[in-house]
């Protein structure tokens, strides 16, 4: 039983000592330091306090898992009715990279109904084995049914690690399965690496993204991690097929569920600037209303939306629901390209949390450049057409 033991005699300044704890878990009682339930065992008090004041006592090691019996990096294939979500390919690319470091195989786990044909597509992405469970009962995503099939796969294959896309399905299924195997699961990893002993190095933002944490699952298998879409690099699709497809069955009795899907309604694609991953913003640098079409072209190529500043709404070129800023909407897209926007404080307050900010403006003194990650002092009427042709050329090459 690991625990913290306070050695009062080693503490000179009680107040200074209890301040070390970021969670306020140390309190002074009758001149002595006591630990409360707020303690998160971060052990900063051990590291930062006077030598020996706080001791971390570990008990004798528990029996360890035999890591040689758990081999291979598996990827859960995320899909809707057989259409494979691209996060799957990104994870297969990462899995291949990790697996090569420790000379182990890459597996894919594909659960669904009438998916055997789609499984072949995975063979173009460097897998060693695609495990397919193709059952009528797996047609709709139901947590219990899917978790049971997942469990069969783990018991049959014993993978060292399983990567799952952090999609609405993955974010339910991964924890359900991790709890079933009483193993560790790290959500939304941004970096993955692997040690020679197949311990997966999982790095994720903690505390709202201001701190990164490096996490290991040193004594449990399988190790599980979820990764969001567009975090890892997708490998190039190889024209040759590799690996083999292995089908497995789970009996219908085992696939029972307390959940019945009554009706499925297709979602209407909602377009709002708050929802967009990419925004192209029109500012007063735009010369006439017709030129919005140019920005729309760029937004279309990048899969985004066009938004605007307040003067654009006042001049009647845009509807108010496209306006960014204190009197409009607050947005936080992954990419925002401002075109001819000066960057008034009221505007910046509505967009400065965007992940990547690109500013194009002819005025080198424009205040938007203080906020921008990438500043282009230039004419949007020259920069954007060239950028568009680069993007189209790039897409052409890959097609």
């Amino acid at each position, binding site marked *: 039983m690991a625990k913290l033991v306070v050695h009062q005699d080693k503490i000179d300044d009680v107040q200074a000592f209890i301040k070390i704890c970021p969670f306020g878990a140390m309190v002074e009682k009758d001149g002595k330091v006591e630990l409360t339930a707020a303690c998160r065992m971060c052990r900063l008090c051990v590291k930062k306090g006077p030598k020996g004041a706080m001791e971390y006592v570990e008990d004798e090691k528990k029996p360890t898992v035999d890591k040689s019996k758990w081999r291979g990096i598996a990827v859960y294939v995320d899909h809707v009715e057989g259409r494979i979500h691209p996060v799957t390919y990104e994870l297969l690319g990462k899995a291949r990279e990790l697996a090569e470091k420790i000379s182990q195989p890459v597996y894919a786990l594909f659960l669904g109904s009438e998916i055997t044909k789609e499984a072949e597509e995975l063979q173009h992405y460097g897998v060693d084995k695609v495990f397919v469970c193709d059952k009528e009962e797996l047609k709709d995503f139901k*947590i219990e049914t899917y978790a049971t099939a997942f469990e069969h796969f783990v018991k049959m294959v014993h993978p060292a690690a399983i990567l799952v896309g952090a999609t609405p399905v993955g974010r339910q299924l991964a924890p359900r*399965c991790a709890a079933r195997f009483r*193993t560790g699961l790290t*959500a939304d990893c941004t970096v993955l690496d692997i040690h020679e002993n197949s311990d997966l190095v999982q790095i994720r933002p903690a505390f709202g993204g201001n*701190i990164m944490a490096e996490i290991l699952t040193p004594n449990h298998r399988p190790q599980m991690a979820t990764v969001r879409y567009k975090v890892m*690099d997708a490998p190039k699709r190889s024209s040759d097929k590799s690996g083999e497809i292995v089908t497995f069955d789970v009996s219908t009795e085992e696939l029972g569920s307390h959940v019945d899907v009554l009706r499925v309604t297709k979602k209407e694609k909602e377009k709002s600037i708050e929802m967009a991953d990419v925004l192209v913003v029109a500012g007063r640098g735009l010369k006439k209303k017709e030129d919005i079409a140019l920005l729309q072209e760029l937004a279309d190529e990048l899969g985004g939306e066009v938004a605007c500043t307040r003067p654009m709404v006042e001049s009647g070129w845009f509807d108010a629901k496209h306006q960014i800023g204190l009197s409009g909407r607050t947005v936080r897209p992954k990419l925002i390209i401002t075109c001819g926007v000066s960057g008034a404080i009221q505007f910046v307050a509505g967009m400065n949390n965007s992940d990547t900010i690109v500013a194009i403006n002819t005025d080198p003194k424009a205040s938007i450049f203080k906020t921008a990650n990438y500043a*282009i002092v230039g*004419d949007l009427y020259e920069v954007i057409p060239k950028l568009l042709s680069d*993007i189209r050329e*790039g897409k052409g090459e890959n097609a």
Partner: protein
Amino acid sequence: MEILVCIKQVPGSNKVEVDPVTGVLKRDGADSKMNPYDLYALEVGLELREQYGGKVSVLTMGPPQAKAVLYEAFAMGADEGALITDRKFGGADVLATSYTLSQGIKKFGKFDLILCGLQTTDGDTAQVGPEVSETLGIPCVCNVSAIGAVKAGGITVMMDMPEDIEEVKVSFPCLLTVQKDIMQPRLPSYKLKKATESRGIQMFTLQDMEDTDEHHYGLNGSPTQVQRIFPPTSDKVQQKLEGTTAEMADQLYRILKKKKFTA
């Protein structure tokens, strides 16, 4: 209907920094509040009680001061509260937290419906709800965006999926994680606050649990171990692109390509 809402006290702000020299977390003092997502779960519980009768209980886990969120829930209309607190529960990861909550739930009572917020604002994992349901051996539906009718020993809900909305019926007992904006949470009532401020709450420590093996709780019961924490490498670049207009456009294209905004 017996309804349980799991709530969590979270820091009032996410503004934590790591001192780059000492590696120590710098955190703004005692400012804390109820996880905003949990307000929606609580509102769903209260509305269901108003419609179908029954009782709404609230459960939280944390240091003794976390009971503040239970009283916050009382002021909104919750009937009973319990706090799971023990130093031995410290340092718990998702699995150990879920296990501790499940043990606390078993101790607290029998519930038809357990409601959780979609995620917390401090951990942000959205994993505790589904893990609790697995540990209790009951079904769960996540990302619930609307509540339908309660009948025939179950509840109909809308599950928000990437491309569609699925109307599903799930039988009791079950666990739901609800999305933000599923219902407008009511404001705490001053009258209720006054009426409930001396209401007793139950406290569960390790000794109260069915499983008292301390290896299953806290840091010891956590398969994942944080090796280190470090400040993110600043991705806040401030780069002025140079060259002719065409060259700048080319550079921008390469940046967008590298960041995977285009092929």
